[in-house]
């Protein structure tokens, strides 16, 4: 993430500057903060427009390009300094870079109560229509007694202050993410045509004709004869101009002619409705940023990539490494897609490294179990590999029969586990497992991907080998720094310093296809520009369709039901666009009916880290009737299936001792969630049941039964495989949970060269796909940690072959 920090004063010595400099240093591994100074900003003057001056343009452009703005304001005379007010006025006059931007306010001052009044004024100012920033609510960071707050290295002295700043900043990172998502313009499509409507003007009817193409307002003709000449003229000129420039109905009415102005807006809204679209979407859009000088922008490049997630950035970086040009189109303002959300390490068998670690309990048992699998149940393509693996395992077990061994791994084990892990049967009895050649490609080259990422600049933590949830084996390569973000940040840096181009806020809409050859992309930017990229190859890397419920429901063959309002752990951008683009060129799809759900997600947000998340041996799950319904130690699939069969919503029950084993939260967060009503707490089991609306007697019996199973170590009802604590110590907790969509395994059919394959099993020339957009590898269930291996491996393969095919 990149933030702009503004020092809210032009004084030579400023504690607010020190505060920002401290934040810059302190948060360096989380985000980049660039500090801007007000020293050279001229006093705002409406009659001497200097919007084009270098200093104001610098503010304008840097803010526009940033993920958010941090303003550190002193308090001068109970308000913000004039110098700060002046730059805000410049940025609300002809330029509007703060429009919809996430803003965090901090302040330092001599006074004990810090800069509270100034911060309040600043909030009101930033809320003015010309500014229209999205200011983070709450989390008011006021540094009182600033002259005593820093040590001589410029660091904040008090740990409590630092802790509070940490929590405000963590919240801001999240907030700016959410705001970025809010800024994604909702798509709109019209029934093309010219619509005759009548709006209400100042002096009566205002007949208009509005021409719409499939995705744009093209023309607005108004019969102006009845309105007052001289007063309404400006409105007739300016309002349609603003509407067309910005493709928005969020326009400033013309003072003195506000009724006419609103009439024009209402008229266009009527036409939009007649064309089958919702005008509210246009009203929520950003205001026009002035005339759009270039409505069509064209680019020429070697490889154009759709989607700036892990797979897409990898394909672009690999292209550039080989001396060719690449452009990445990204629908969202921020890059990274689902890849930045990934919390785990990436899988790659690296025995040389893994062998340096000792085995842990249970691993030998897992290997034995694998080697004892009946060969008749192994599908033919995998049989030779399975036999070879068996041999490896037996040698290893023999060699270490009487001693503590090292951690075993091999490409074959990774391959067979990917195959076994993905094997599923859907509701219709269709069996699916990973396509052999693709799984082999993945497991053979995953380690190369780790090495390649190191060359690009990703640093891995070699000191431990970990296993993400659902991975089956310890072969995780964990980057230093926050996980998903570390990959994206390194790739972004590499691209930026090697002339790679990432165009954000731009969604790919259509493939350019000439004589069966894919030759580029037509895209639309969020401010309405048409972007045409001519290229020798197109790589689709737009991720899966986890955030597209309609599409999930259409293809689903695995779950008995998917709720209309099901939540997702995915970024809202992940709507299957690449799959549809591929289909427009005749692509075949594979495994589309299989999706992965995260059973223990927040029912409102889909998030994983709310409520009390405890180790599975301490899971006690009850349905809405207050009864247990599943072996809580089961796989994600089993839990999800059972939850769906029990009406989706269920509760994780904990007592005070189980609460202590939660790895995701703090007492402060717990208290807050209880207060907000997203987590329930009560001193008695009966009270807890009443709070969530269960029959108290049923619930109490359920818990007593569970406790008795813990005592004897056996669960005759659901055969829970492992226990730890009983539910007995007040207060008691209930965390509401619901399965949320996590991953889509199906997608475009590809070959081992990442070519997209059409329905006649032929390569579609010029079209490649990599990452979650492609299907065939993970089949019915993706192993934790395998997706990252997939995207970095097939991202490289796509670029390699795109360039090879060009020659």
């Amino acid at each position, binding site marked *: 993430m990149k933030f702009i920090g503004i020092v809210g004063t032009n004084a030579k010595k400023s504690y607010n500057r020190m505060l920002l400099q401290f934040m810059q240093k302190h948060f360096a591994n989380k985000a980049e903060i660039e500090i801007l100074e007000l020293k050279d900003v*001229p*006093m705002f*003057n409406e009659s001497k427009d200097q919007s084009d001056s270098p200093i104001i343009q610098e503010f304008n452009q840097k803010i526009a390009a940033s993920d958010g703005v941090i303003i550190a304001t002193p308090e001068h*005379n109970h308000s*913000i*300094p004039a110098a700060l007010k002046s730059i805000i006025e410049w940025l609300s006059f002809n330029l509007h870079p703060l429009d919809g931007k996430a803003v965090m306010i901090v302040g330092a001052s001599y*006074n004990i109560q810090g800069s509270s009044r100034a911060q309040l*004024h600043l909030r*009101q100012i930033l809320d003015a229509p*010309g500014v229209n920033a999205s200011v983070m609510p709450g989390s008011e960071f006021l540094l009182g007694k600033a002259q005593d707050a820093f040590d001589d290295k410029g660091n904040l002295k008090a740990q409590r202050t630092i802790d509070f700043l940490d929590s405000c900043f963590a919240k801001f990172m999240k907030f700016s993410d959410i705001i970025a998502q809010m800024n994604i313009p909702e798509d709109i499509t019209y029934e093309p045509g010219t619509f005759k409507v009548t709006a209400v003007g100042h002096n009566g009817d205002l007949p208009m004709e509005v021409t719409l193409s499939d995705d744009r307002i093209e023309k607005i003709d108004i019969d102006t004869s009845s309105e007052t000449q001289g007063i309404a003229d400006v409105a007739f000129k300016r309002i349609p101009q603003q509407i067309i420039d910005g493709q928005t109905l969020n326009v400033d009415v013309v003072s003195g002619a506000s009724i006419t102005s609103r009439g024009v807006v209402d008229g266009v809204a009527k036409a939009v409705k007649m064309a089958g679209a919702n005008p509210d979407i246009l009203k929520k859009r950003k205001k026009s940023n002035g005339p759009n000088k270039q409505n069509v922008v064209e680019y020429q490049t070697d490889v154009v990539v759709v989607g700036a997630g892990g797979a897409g950035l990898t394909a672009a970086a690999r292209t550039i490494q080989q001396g060719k040009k690449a452009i990445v189109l990204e629908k969202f303002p921020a890059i990274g897609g689902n890849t930045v959300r990934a919390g785990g390490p990436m899988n790659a068998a690296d025995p040389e490294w893994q062998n340096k670690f000792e085995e842990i309990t249970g691993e030998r048992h897992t290997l034995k179990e694998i080697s004892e699998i009946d060969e008749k149940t192994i599908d033919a393509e995998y049989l030779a590999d399975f036999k070879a693996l068996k041999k490896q395992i037996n040698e290893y077990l023999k060699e270490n029969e009487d001693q503590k061994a090292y951690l075993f791994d091999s490409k074959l084990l990774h391959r067979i586990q990917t195959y076994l892990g993905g094997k599923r049967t859907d509701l219709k009895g269709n069996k699916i497992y990973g396509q052999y050649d693709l799984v082999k490609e993945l497991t053979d080259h995953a380690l190369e991907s780790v090495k390649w990422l190191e060359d690009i600049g990703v640093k891995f933590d070699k000191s431990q080998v970990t296993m993400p949830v659902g991975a089956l084996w310890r072969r995780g390569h964990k980057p230093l720094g926050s996980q998903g973000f570390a990959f994206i940040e390194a790739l972004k840096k590499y691209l930026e310093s090697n002339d790679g181009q990432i165009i954000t806020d731009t969604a790919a809409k259509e493939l350019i296809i000439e004589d069966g050859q894919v030759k580029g992309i037509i895209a639309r930017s969020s401010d309405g520009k048409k972007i045409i990229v001519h290229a020798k190859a197109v790589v689709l890397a737009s991720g899966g369709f986890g955030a597209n419920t309609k599409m999930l429901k259409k293809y689903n063959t695995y779950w008995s039901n998917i709720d209309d309002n099901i939540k997702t752990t995915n970024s809202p951008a992940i709507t299957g666009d690449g799959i549809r683009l591929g289909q427009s060129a005749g692509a075949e799809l594979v495994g589309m009916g299989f999706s992965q759900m995260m059973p223990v997600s927040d029912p409102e947000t889909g998030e994983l880290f709310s409520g009390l998340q405890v180790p599975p041996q301490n899971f006690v799950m009850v349905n809405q009737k207050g009864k247990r319904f599943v072996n809580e130690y089961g796989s994600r699939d089993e839990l999800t299936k059972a939850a769906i069969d029990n009406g989706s919503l269920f509760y994780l029950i904990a007592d005070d001792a189980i609460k202590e084993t939660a790895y995701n939260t703090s007492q402060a967060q717990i208290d807050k969630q209880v207060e907000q009503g997203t987590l329930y707490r009560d001193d008695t089991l009966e009270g807890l049941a009443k709070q969530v609306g269960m029959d108290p007697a049923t619930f109490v019996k359920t818990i007593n039964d569970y406790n008795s199973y813990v005592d004897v170590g056996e669960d005759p009802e659901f055969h829970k495989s492992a226990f730890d604590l009983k539910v007995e110590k007040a207060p008691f907790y209930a965390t509401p949970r619901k399965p949320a969509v996590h991953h889509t395994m199906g997608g475009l059919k590809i070959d081992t060269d990442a070519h997209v394959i059409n329905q006649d099993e032929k390569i579609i020339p010029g079209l490649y796909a990599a990452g979650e957009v492609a299907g065939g590898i993970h089949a019915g269930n993706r192993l934790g940690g395998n997706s990252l291996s997939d995207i970095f491996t097939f991202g490289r393969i796509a670029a390699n072959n795109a360039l090879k095919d060009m020659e």
Partner: protein
Amino acid sequence: MKLVGIVGTNSSESTNRRLLQYMKQHYSEQAEIEICEIDEIPVFNEPEDKTAPQAVQVLSDKIAASDGVIFATPEYDHSIPAVLKNAIEWLSYTTRPLINKPVMIIGASLGALGTSRAQAHLRQILEAPELKALIMPNVEYLLGRALEAFDDDGNMVYKDKAKELDNDFIEFLSFVKLTEKLTANSKFFEISKQFSWKQVANGEDM
């Protein structure tokens, strides 16, 4: 009675300036209003020597010599314009002529809604310890649709708004007289003159 009217903007076209000009002309019998501009004042930057630049000194002297001050402020982004805030910061940081000075706040705007938020901010600002102006309570004069408010001879077209301003202005004149009595032997004045935020923080004062 001698009053100073401060135009709260540096814009060459200002309805707030016109409003003050209207008052100057219209109330010439009751008071002498001198209109002051703030566009020449440099950007405030907390200079260490704490001396007022020429333009600030001139304004400060006029305020000091007056019986009361009228601020006419537009509203920019829900607050007062930076240029007006700038002038006030200089005054508070150097000469502090507004302490115990009677003040009337008015505002004109092009739209119908007027400048109520800017006026509220200005009140809070002028109440800061190093400014301590005496702001006339209970009066908020907002002139909306100000572009069409005056005819060619400078008369106010909106009769109700003209009447309201007459009443408010008479009120202000008696407020000025009232405060003279109040402040004649106020100790507040000296305290405020010496006020420093540093002292507050160090617990030396207040």
